[in-house]
């Protein structure tokens, strides 16, 4: 029996469920590998754990699916599209064939991913699940084969027909599962999913006797969980870099929040504060009946003696502030500037972590650099007396600036080693920078592309790149 096929086999008409003999008769030179369902499941689990980088909530859907709850996770990647692009690119690069679908409900996403082979992530807009499901075939509803076959015999082809048909008779004939799946896809019925959690990571769990609803009660439980977890972390001499908190509602829906820290941390007060700031995102519905706190990412953290120097308190404080800001605006929008080896000014500044150790590199102390950089540089029209003289006048945004005094040129060479961008196409590019003072005292940074002798160095066009103090 054929258990699974790749894209080429699909194209040749081979389907899962066929006998090998029949498949061989279709494609004489067919390559058949023994199915290893346990190995597949283990690989799927590994992939699910890896997907933990996108969301605190990843569940497996054997034999070949993953559910990732990305609600609230998009800001960390910039946008939902950026998140999906990143996910698609990384998994495709690992050599897997994949189809991503985003929808309001796991059921709908499941159906779209399997029945809309777009090749790129498909997003069903919020509230549009019913419309999307209506277009799909009945087989998309995760039903057993006899049920699908039976429906087909009755003339049902698409989900739309099923939605219009009266429920009673169908339910009597095909069982409850049919409408349960339909309701799950449309969001009328809950879909219990169990998040995948790596073995051996510190975790704490509380099953609550009475479901809790209020923020205060949730905060109280979070406090208990964090205390448990901090104890475990202290035993292992580790600190948390990422915490996932799962809330299981009485209707079996699981919601999750995730926080990150800039440096490994196991200070209960700090972690409680970070988690507490996110409680508002949880919709308790009829109540939360169980909560799990998982330190999904940890790093070694030694116990440190309390520092008596006054500066120490300041550092600790900074970590808390950086975490609070990073959890609100995203890790990427919090950075320090650091010198980077690069020929052109726009690439001489890199970003390092807000709390990273200061590097040794320094910018040149005696080269003038503008306080405000215009990136990308804007083309301007320039009048210069002689080719090598500084400009006498330039026009920017239809305004005329008369240059009174100037310094320059400072010649900068492009990085021939770069692989992408403008400089890769013109590895020998040269810029001559001038610092000019215009009427009124404003100072600007202009440059001319090219050295005037070799066409490969640039087109001799002028650009405005920034303004000085």
């Amino acid at each position: 029996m054929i258990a699974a096929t790749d894209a080429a086999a699909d194209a040749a008409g081979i389907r899962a469920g066929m006998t090998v003999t029949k498949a061989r008769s279709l494609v004489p030179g067919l390559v058949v590998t023994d199915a290893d369902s346990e190995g597949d499941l283990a690989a799927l689990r590994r992939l699910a754990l890896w997907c933990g980088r996108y969301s605190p909530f990843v569940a497996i859907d054997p034999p070949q699916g993953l559910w990732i709850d990305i609600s609230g996770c998009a800001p960390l990647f910039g946008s939902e599209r950026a998140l999906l692009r990143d996910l698609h690119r990384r998994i495709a690069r690992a050599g897997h064939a994949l189809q991503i679908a985003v929808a309001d409900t796991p059921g709908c996403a499941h159906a779209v991913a399997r029945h809309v082979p777009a090749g790129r992530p498909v997003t069903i807009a919020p509230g549009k699940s019913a419309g999307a499901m209506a277009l799909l075939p009945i087989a998309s509803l995760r039903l057993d084969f006899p049920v699908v076959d039976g429906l087909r015999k009755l003339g049902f082809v698409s989900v739309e027909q099923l939605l219009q048909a009266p429920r009673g008779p169908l339910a009597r004939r095909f069982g409850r599962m049919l409408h349960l799946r339909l309701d799950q896809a449309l969001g009328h019925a809950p879909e219990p999913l169990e998040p995948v959690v790596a073995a051996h990571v510190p975790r704490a769990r509380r099953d609550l006797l009475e479901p809790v609803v209020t923020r205060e009660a949730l905060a109280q439980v979070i406090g208990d969980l964090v205390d448990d977890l901090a104890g475990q972390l202290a035993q292992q001499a580790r600190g948390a870099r990422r915490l996932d908190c799962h809330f299981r509602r009485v209707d079996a829906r699981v919601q999750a929040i995730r926080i990150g820290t800039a440096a490994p941390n196991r200070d209960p007060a700090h972690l409680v504060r970070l988690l507490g700031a996110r409680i508002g995102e949880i919709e308790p519905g009829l109540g939360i009946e169980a909560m799990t706190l998982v330190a999904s990412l940890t790093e070694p953290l030694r116990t440190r003696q309390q520092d008596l120097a006054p500066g120490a308190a300041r550092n600790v404080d900074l970590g808390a502030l950086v975490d609070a800001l990073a959890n609100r605006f995203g890790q990427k929008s919090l950075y320090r500037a650091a010198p980077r080896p690069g020929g052109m000014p726009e690439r001489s500044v890199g970003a390092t972590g807000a709390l990273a150790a200061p590097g040794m590199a320094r910018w040149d102390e005696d080269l003038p650099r503008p306080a405000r950089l215009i990136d990308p540089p804007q083309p301007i029209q320039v009048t210069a007396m002689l080719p090598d003289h500084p400009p006498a006048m330039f026009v920017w945004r239809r305004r005329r600036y008369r240059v009174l005094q100037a310094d320059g040129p400072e010649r900068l060479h492009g990085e021939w080693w770069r692989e992408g961008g403008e400089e890769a196409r013109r590895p020998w590019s040269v810029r001559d920078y001038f610092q000019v003072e215009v009427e009124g005292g404003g100072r600007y940074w202009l440059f001319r592309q090219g050295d005037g002798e070799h066409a490969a160095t640039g087109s001799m066009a002028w650009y405005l790149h920034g303004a000085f103090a």
Partner: protein
Amino acid sequence: MRHPAAIAALRARIAAIEGSAAPRHALPFGLPALDDHLPGGGLAGAALHEVAGSAALCDDAAATIFLAGILARLEGAVFWCLRWRDLFAPALDLAGLSPDRVIHVEAGSDTNVLLAMEECLRHAGLAGVVGEVAKLSTTASKRLQLAAERSGVPAFVFRRASALERQAEGTAAATRWRVLAAPSAPLGIPGLGRPRWEIRLERVRGAEPKSWIMEACDAQGRLALPAALADRPAAAQERRRAG
């Protein structure tokens, strides 16, 4: 009928009512011309200050370095909350503000910048918090001023691309500055001299508005009086007093 002691006592009572009774540390510019004019002998340390350039980019650049110069002479970390990424760190370094001390917070919008500033101002021990916004409402300025008072951290709101003629809203800030590029002194040879700014103190609690022509920050973030002008304001005041 002028009793200095009575007036001092009245001042102290007013200060107590205003909530600024505790002895505040001031951040002096190190220039008598500025410091003597500011109440307390410098910028109030636990307060909000507004700084603006103008619609021209060169004036915004001047205001940026004006801020960098103030922060360079303080100790501790600086949080610089931005809407977009056009701040060029090497220039801050040239004004004495090492990039190791500056943590950029790219918040994306005015609302988020103000939120980020408030969050930063909850933490004592920072050198200062800068926020770049397009507009600052009176309510927002009040919130920031209160936050700065509580933590003792100076807060600076930098109103970006704020046109000269536009009247800014009322503010709870202790001072409001406008920094504009001014023509520098010709060197006599081709080349640029030290940049000059026109620094306008547009509003200050407890003193009159005033404006100065100053030489821009040096590598330690210090302003200077132009050599040729150094004596003139004092002399002019003498004359006025005589007249």
